[in-house]
C-alpha cells in the first residue's frame, strides 16, 4: 500500500514539475501537452463518477466539453462583434456560470429521459443526444457552423492571465486536483455509497427504500457539470471550438481513458488520460494513420486487460 501511495504521489508531482521544467529549457510543447492532459483528465474524472461509480455507461460526454467551450466562445464572439448584449462578456466567472448552467440543464433534460432506460438503450440514447448537440452547433451559421468558432479573447479572471501558458497550466492542474478531491469526498459520502449500491444491485437499493432514479439523476447532472467546466478550460486553451469536438468518437476517447485507467478509482481517469495523450502523441508523430494502431490497441485492451491500469497497480 505504501508503495502505491508514493507512486501516485510521484505521478502527481512529476505532472506538476516536469512540464514547467521542459518549458524553462525552451520546450514549451510539453507544457501545452500537459495542459491538454489535465483538461482531458478533468473530463474523464467527471465521466468516471457515473460510468465507474454509478454504472451508467454514457457515450455522450463530449457534448458537455463542447457546451463548456461554446460557453466561452459565444459570449466572446458577441462581445467582439455585437448582438445579444445580455450574453456578451469576457468575464471568466460569467463563462463558468453559463457553462455550468447550460451543461447542467442539458444533463438534467436528457438525463430525465435517458435514466428511464437501462443498458444498451442508455448507451445509445446518450450517444444520440450528444449527436443532437453536434448537429445543433453544425446548423448555427452565426457561430461558424461546421467550420467552428475562433475564440478571440480568453476568459478574464482577476489576478490570472490565461494568455500565459504557465498560468493556463496551473489553473488546469489545480482544477484537476480539486475535482479529484471532490470526487474522493463524494464517493466516500453517504450519496456515493448509495450510488455504488445502485451499481451493484439496483433492485436491492429500491427495496431498501432509496429513490434510485433521483440519485442517478443527481450524479448524471453533476458529472455533466464537471465536463462542462473542463470544456471552459478546453475552449480557453485551444482558443477554438468546432462541432468536431462534440463528435461521438471524442466521447469514445473519454470512455477509453476511464476504462483504461480503471473505473471507480480517484486516480484512474488521470492515468488513462496520461496514457491516451502520450499514445496519441507518439503514434501520430510516427504516422498520420495513428488511429489504426490505436484501434488495435483498444481491441487488445478490451480482450486481454480487464480492470485497467489501476488493477495492475493494486495487484
Amino acid at each position, binding site marked *: 500500500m505504501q508503495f502505491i501511495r508514493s507512486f501516485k504521489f510521484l505521478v502527481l508531482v512529476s505532472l506538476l514539475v516536469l512540464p514547467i521544467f521542459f518549458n524553462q529549457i525552451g520546450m514549451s510543447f510539453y507544457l501545452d501537452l500537459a495542459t491538454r492532459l489535465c483538461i482531458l483528465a478533468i473530463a474523464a474524472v467527471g465521466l468516471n463518477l457515473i460510468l465507474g461509480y454509478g454504472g451508467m455507461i454514457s457515450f455522450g460526454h463530449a457534448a458537455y466539453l463542447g457546451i463548456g467551450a461554446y460557453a466561452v466562445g459565444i459570449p466572446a464572439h458577441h462581445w467582439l462583434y455585437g448582438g445579444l448584449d445580455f450574453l456578451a462578456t469576457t468575464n471568466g466567472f460569467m463563462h463558468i456560470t453559463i457553462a455550468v448552467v447550460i451543461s447542467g440543464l442539458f444533463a438534467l433534460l436528457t438525463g430525465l429521459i435517458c435514466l428511464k432506460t437501462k*443498458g444498451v438503450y442508455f*448507451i445509445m*440514447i446518450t450517444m444520440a443526444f450528444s449527436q*443532437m448537440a453536434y448537429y445543433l452547433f453544425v446548423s448555427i451559421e452565426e457561430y461558424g457552423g461546421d467550420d467552428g468558432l475562433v475564440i478571440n479573447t480568453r476568459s478574464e479572471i482577476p489576478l490570472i492571465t490565461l494568455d500565459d501558458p504557465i498560468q493556463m497550466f496551473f489553473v488546469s492542474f489545480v482544477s484537476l486536483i480539486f475535482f479529484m478531491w471532490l470526487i474522493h469526498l463524494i464517493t466516500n459520502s453517504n450519496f456515493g455509497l448509495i450510488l455504488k449500491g445502485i451499481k451493484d444491485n439496483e433492485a436491492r437499493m429500491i427495496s431498501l427504500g432509496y429513490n434510485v432514479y433521483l440519485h442517478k439523476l443527481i450524479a448524471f447532472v453533476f458529472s455533466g457539470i464537471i465536463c462542462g467546466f473542463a470544456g471552459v478550460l478546453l475552449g480557453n486553451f485551444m482558443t477554438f471550438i468546432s462541432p468536431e469536438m462534440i*463528435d461521438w468518437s471524442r466521447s469514445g476517447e473519454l470512455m*477509453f481513458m476511464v476504462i483504461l485507467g480503471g473505473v471507480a478509482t480517484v486516480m484512474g481517469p488521470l492515468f488513462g488520460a496520461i496514457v491516451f495523450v502520450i499514445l496519441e502523441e507518439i503514434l501520430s508523430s510516427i504516422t498520420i*494513420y495513428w488511429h489504426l494502431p*490505436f484501434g*488495435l490497441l483498444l481491441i487488445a485492451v478490451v480482450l486481454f486487460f480487464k480492470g485497467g491500469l489501476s488493477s495492475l497497480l493494486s495487484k
Partner: protein
Amino acid sequence: MDYTLLLIQVLNGLQLGVLLFLVASGLTLVFGILDFVNLAHGSIYMLGAFICASLTYVLESYLLAIVLSLPIIGIIGYVFELFLARPLYARDHLDHVLGTFGAILVIDTAAHLIWGPAGIAIPLPDYLDGQISIAENIEIPTFRLLIIVVGLTAAFGLLWLVNFTRLGMLIRAGASNRTMVAALGINIRSLFAIVFALGATLAGLAGMLIAPITEASLGMGNNIIITAFVVIIVGGIGSVKGAFVAALLIGLIDTLGRAFLDDLFKIFMSTTAAENSAPAISSMSIYLIMALILSFKPKGLFPPRLR
C-alpha cells in the same frame, strides 16, 4: 403548397427510410439475438460502398459489382464475428462498445489507407440513370425508385425469413432462450455467425445502394450509425418489425423536416426568425421525436417480449 415537391420529398424520405432499415435491421437482429452491441456496423456499411465502387471500376458494371460485393461483405461480417464479436459475447456491454469502437478506428483508417481520403463516385449505367414519369408532370429518378423497391424487397424478405422459415424459427428461438436452443442440439455458434453475416450483408447492401448518389466516403458509416441507433431505439431493440416502422418514420420526418419546416414556421413567426431557427430544429427533429416516444414508451414502439 406545391404537391409535386411534397410527393418528391416523400419519396426521398422513403428512400432514406429503407436504407436506414437495411442498416438498422442488422443492428437490431445482432442485438436481439446475440445481445451484442456493434458500433462498427456503420463501418461495414461504408466498406460495402467502397468495395462496390472499386469492383464497379474493375468489372465496368454496377450490377455485377453488387452481386459480387454482397458475398464479400458477408464474409467480412463472418470474420468480424469470429475474431472480435465471439470472444466478447460473454462480456458486458461496456466491453462490446469499446471493442467495436476500436474496430471502427481500425476499419476506417484501413479504408483511408486503401482508398485514399477522397470519396469515390460510382457511375450509373444509362438504363438506371434516367427519369421515370409516374404521373403527369411528375418525374422521379429511376435509381431512387429502384432503391425503394430493392429496400422494400429486402425488408419483406427479411420479415419472411424471420417469421416463416426454419432458420427464422431458430433465430427467434435463439433470441428468447439460447441455452434451450443449444440444449435441443442446434449449433448456436454457427447460428450466431449466420445472423451476424446476414446483418453485415444488409448493411453492405445499403452502402452499395447509396454510393451512386452520395459517393463512397470515409465518414459515411459514422454518420448513419447514430441515426440507425435512433431507429432501433424508437422501434424497440430486437424487433425487426419495429425497426421497419421506425426507419420509415425517421426517414420521412428527417427529410420532410429539412424540406418544409421553414415554410411551416413562417406561418406563425417572422421570415427571418423562421429561416434562422428551422435548420437548427430540423437537424434535431429525429432526436426530439426519439425523446418524445421514449418518455411514453421507454422500451420503444414494439418492445420484444421478455426472455
